[in-house]
């Protein structure tokens, strides 16, 4: 049993109060959370004053960028030296931990606050300013423990909506009218001490969570079946054929950390004559060549760690269901190694370890 704090406030207000409490009490010197920006959008910000935190929107259902990527870059050169709390969605936290396994980030002095996650809207909803009007309905659907068909398809089909390595979990999808905050560690409990509200023994509402997981699982099968035909060369060309080669999917990906990606370099550029051999057997070549190659190359490098956050699809200018394609492949690979990306920092990446007596049937 964990300690649970029953706050007197609605979820968004309660989360904001938690951030302010942490800053006011001096338990942390900064918080990283979503803040509003002019023009209808939100952005992650490092906030150090409680007054500024009072206008933050910690649970706003948008993911302008996967916070895992932000944290990786934030801690790439040096760990955080003073205590900072970060409010990350489960897939953001998991993505961050996956990059740490690749020695790209550090957890020192970070307090992880996460949530049972209801999902986010595609980012284009922020641009047209229509999102605020949708918020009451968004929270209403959460209270009914139902699916929201306007969210990112990866969110609608997400069954990994519970955080794994958070110190503190905000009960959102399994919440009550007032926000309940679960302390998962002694560190987390110490951070909550002194907040308004009542402490009790408890945890998450497993019943509501498994009911929602079943609904999401059903949505998952239908979305995975419907959204990305990636069967065979024909399917791959159908799905990725309209790619304009902007590589925004890889830029937005929290796992794709390489600052000098092979696909951004001239490594795979070809001289005109290099096409000659290929043109002996086919009627033509696409220019620039290597569209499917880029996507499969990226897939073979990162799908094992794909947390299915949907950021790649969110930024695709030609609406390719990138995230669903990667989710399909990623889930299959991950289950092959019984691996859940970001579940535990101590778990080694499956391609960085081995057992002598395994997969002996792979040889052909």
């Amino acid at each position, binding site marked *: 049993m964990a300690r649970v704090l029953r706050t007197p406030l609605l979820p968004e207000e309660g989360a904001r109060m938690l951030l302010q409490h942490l800053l006011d009490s001096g338990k942390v010197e900064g918080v990283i959370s979503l803040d509003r920006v002019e023009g209808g959008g939100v952005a992650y910000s490092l906030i150090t004053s409680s007054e500024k935190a009072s206008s933050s929107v910690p649970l706003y259902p948008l993911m302008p960028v996967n916070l895992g990527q932000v944290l990786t870059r934030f801690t790439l050169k040096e760990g955080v030296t003073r205590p900072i709390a970060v409010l990350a969605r489960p897939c953001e936290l998991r993505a961050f931990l996956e990059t740490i396994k690749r020695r790209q980030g550090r957890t020192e002095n970070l307090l992880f606050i996460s949530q049972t996650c209801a999902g986010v809207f595609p980012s284009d909803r922020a641009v047209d300013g229509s999102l605020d009007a949708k918020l009451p309905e968004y929270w209403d659907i959460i209270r009914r423990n139902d699916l929201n068909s306007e969210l990112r398809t990866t969110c609608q089909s997400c069954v990994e909506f519970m955080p794994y390595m958070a110190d503190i979990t905000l009960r959102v999808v399994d919440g009550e009218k007032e926000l309940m905050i679960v302390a998962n560690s002694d560190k987390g409990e110490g951070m909550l001490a002194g907040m308004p509200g009542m402490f009790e023994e408890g945890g998450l509402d497993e019943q509501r969570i498994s009911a929602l997981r079943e609904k999401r699982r059903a949505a998952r099968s239908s979305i995975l079946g419907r959204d990305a035909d990636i069967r065979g060369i024909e399917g791959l060309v159908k799905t990725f054929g309209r790619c304009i080669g902007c590589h925004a999917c890889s830029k937005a990906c929290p796992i794709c950390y390489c600052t000098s990606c092979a696909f951004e370099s001239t490594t795979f550029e070809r001289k005109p004559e290099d096409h000659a051999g290929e043109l002996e057997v*086919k009627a033509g070549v696409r220019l620039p060549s290597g569209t499917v190659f880029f996507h499969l190359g990226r897939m073979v490098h990162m799908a094992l760690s794909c947390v299915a956050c949907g950021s790649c699809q969110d930024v695709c200018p030609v609406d390719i269901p990138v995230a669903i394609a990667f989710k399909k492949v990623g889930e299959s690979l991950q289950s092959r190694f019984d691996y859940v990306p970001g579940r535990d920092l101590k778990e080694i990446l499956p*391609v960085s370890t081995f057992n002598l007596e395994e*997969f002996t049937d*792979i040889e052909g």
Partner: protein
Amino acid sequence: MDEKEHEAKVIAFLCNWCAYAGADLAGVSRLNLPPNIRNIRVMCSGRVNPIWILKAFLGGADGVLVAGCHPRDCHYQRGNMFTRRRFVLLKDMFDTLGLEGERVRVSWISASEGIKYSEVVREFTESLNRLGPNPASAEIFL
């Protein structure tokens, strides 16, 4: 393409210490080898980036072979063990994508196994001939 029977083209990545020496032995032993295999020597099978395999495959190779030292016999102690895990990943990805996983193969061939090398490449090319041309070899919009 003319109508004569399809002869599968194979790109083979062979490790310097075992598989390449095995292939060499097959050659000097005058064993019968399929002509359409292109051997590329690498220092270790573990050095083969899966991207190279994808590039060969999408470039139209009918099959890609990676061969290295037997388990426990790697010149670098454990490079081939990482190859094996990577192949599990690659095969699974090929299967999920419906890309005929049998077009990629990994084999352990020691320096003394000239005969095994000749058998592996012969069986592989025969199975690829039965499978027919790689669909990627005719696709323009890759």
